[in-house]
């Protein structure tokens, strides 16, 4: 396992160093891309020196947390309800399977008209992106509860609440975790995309602003921040997810 880690780290480090060299040797010119070391330096400058940085970070983070909460809780509840009614499931199936194939974010201008330009439109946008991944994962997770567990519940005469808490929840946990990871990923994408297109505050908006001002330093500083955040959250949730999968399938 550690050999895998070593390779991963060296591949990533290798690409960063290669990029650094390409920029330093002016094979990639300064107007196109900064060397990664300068991006990090710029990020420190921005984080310390600018008055908007922390309020914008807080704004974006708050929106992400709200959107994730709505999509995870809402998606779970809708998933449970849809799974309980086969007819409803058959009706909604075409929506869920083609949902991520349509460019949802083109609804964003409509959301602004509905909810105004502000956090609410962004949160709804992020939740719309994330919720269906959670719904689909919840339905799949309930489908995969082993029959034998339900028999165990019946044999030991567990009431429905206990069956849900003691058997169904642990059995579905790995697949729910997959749904959670996807919902978080999609919510982040939705919110940053929304901010990038049109917003009054937020890190995504700052990227768009600095791009329009030809302020490459700020733009790249914020870009690596967003990329590192998204990749970091994804890596963390993947690790948790794999842990759950392993624990469940070993025992």
């Amino acid at each position, binding site marked *: 396992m550690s050999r*895998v880690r070593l*390779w*991963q780290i060296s*591949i*990533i480090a290798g690409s960063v160093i290669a990029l650094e060299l390409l920029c330093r040797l002016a094979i990639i010119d300064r*107007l*196109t*891309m900064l060397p990664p070391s300068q991006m990090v330096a710029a990020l420190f400058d921005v984080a310390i020196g600018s008055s908007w940085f922390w309020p914008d970070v807080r704004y974006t983070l708050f929106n992400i947390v709200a959107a994730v909460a709505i999509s995870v809780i809402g998606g779970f509840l809708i998933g449970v309800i849809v799974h309980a009614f086969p007819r409803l499931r*058959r*009706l*909604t199936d*075409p*929506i869920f*399977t*083609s949902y*991520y*194939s*349509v*460019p949802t*974010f*083109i*609804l964003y*201008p*409509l959301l602004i*008209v*509905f909810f105004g330009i502000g956090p609410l439109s962004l949160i709804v946008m992020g939740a719309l992106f994330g919720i269906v991944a959670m719904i689909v994962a919840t339905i799949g997770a309930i489908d995969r509860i082993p029959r034998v567990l339900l028999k165990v519940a019946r044999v030991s005469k567990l009431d429905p609440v206990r069956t849900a808490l003691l058997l169904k929840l642990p059995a579905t946990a790995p697949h729910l975790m997959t749904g959670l990871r996807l919902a978080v*990923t999609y919510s*982040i*994408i939705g919110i*940053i*995309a929304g901010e*990038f*297109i049109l917003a009054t505050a937020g890190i*995504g908006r700052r*990227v*768009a602003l600095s*791009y329009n001002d030809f302020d*490459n330093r700020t*733009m790249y500083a*914020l*870009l690596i921040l*967003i*990329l590192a955040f*998204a*990749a970091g*959250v*994804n*890596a963390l949730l*993947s690790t948790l997810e794999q842990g759950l999968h392993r624990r469940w399938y070993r025992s």
Partner: protein
Amino acid sequence: MSARTRILDYCLLAAALLVVWMLLFEWAGPDALSPPIPTFRRIGELLARGNFWGHVEATAVAFGYASLIALVGGLAIGFALGANRFAGQVGEPILTSLYAIPKITLYPVILLIFGLGISAKVAFGALHGLFPVALFTIGAIKNTSPALIKTARILKLSAFETIRSVYFPAAMPEIVTGLRIGFSSTLLGTLIGELFASDRGIGFILIRAMEAHKVEDIMALTLLLFAFAAGANALLLAVEHRAHRR
């Protein structure tokens, strides 16, 4: 389930969506939404107009190139990382992380590298589609039954023959799933590309309608895009079901 109940289901679904649309219209008013009938009429007008098809063609060309890159690149990466266990262990998490980043923020970078025009659109579309195709292919190849792989080794098949006659048929259903998701992501990427920096294509007329606040145009284009994406998706789903059944 018989064909008749399925058709009934689709009718019910369409009716429910129409009702939701009307209710939203009642709630939000004509500033935000256009009602169904004028929207459908507007779609008819758009389709009858000559220069609309020019924009469709621009989008289609960019989408075609981007899909080709995503497909070939994704399959190549997928086969390389799927067939080699160690390479897969190293590469797959990196690909998942790349898939998870909000690529829309990379748009300025793509523009700085490729400049305005079709190459930026193509690059952006391919960037969206490449990772799902690669990830699904890796998954599909990894799940190939070890007995089949051993058989190939015993028969001393060359690498190319192994891929062609063992991996490819065995992994086909899941690869088709990856292609379906890859195609839709590529379309999404191409459209985003047109939205922000382009002078032709569906995305361009959409952003122009947004700027001029032509609600009817926005709704008509949105509906057309949804219909196209959902239709293409349904078609690929049918192919996928057939592949899974075999």
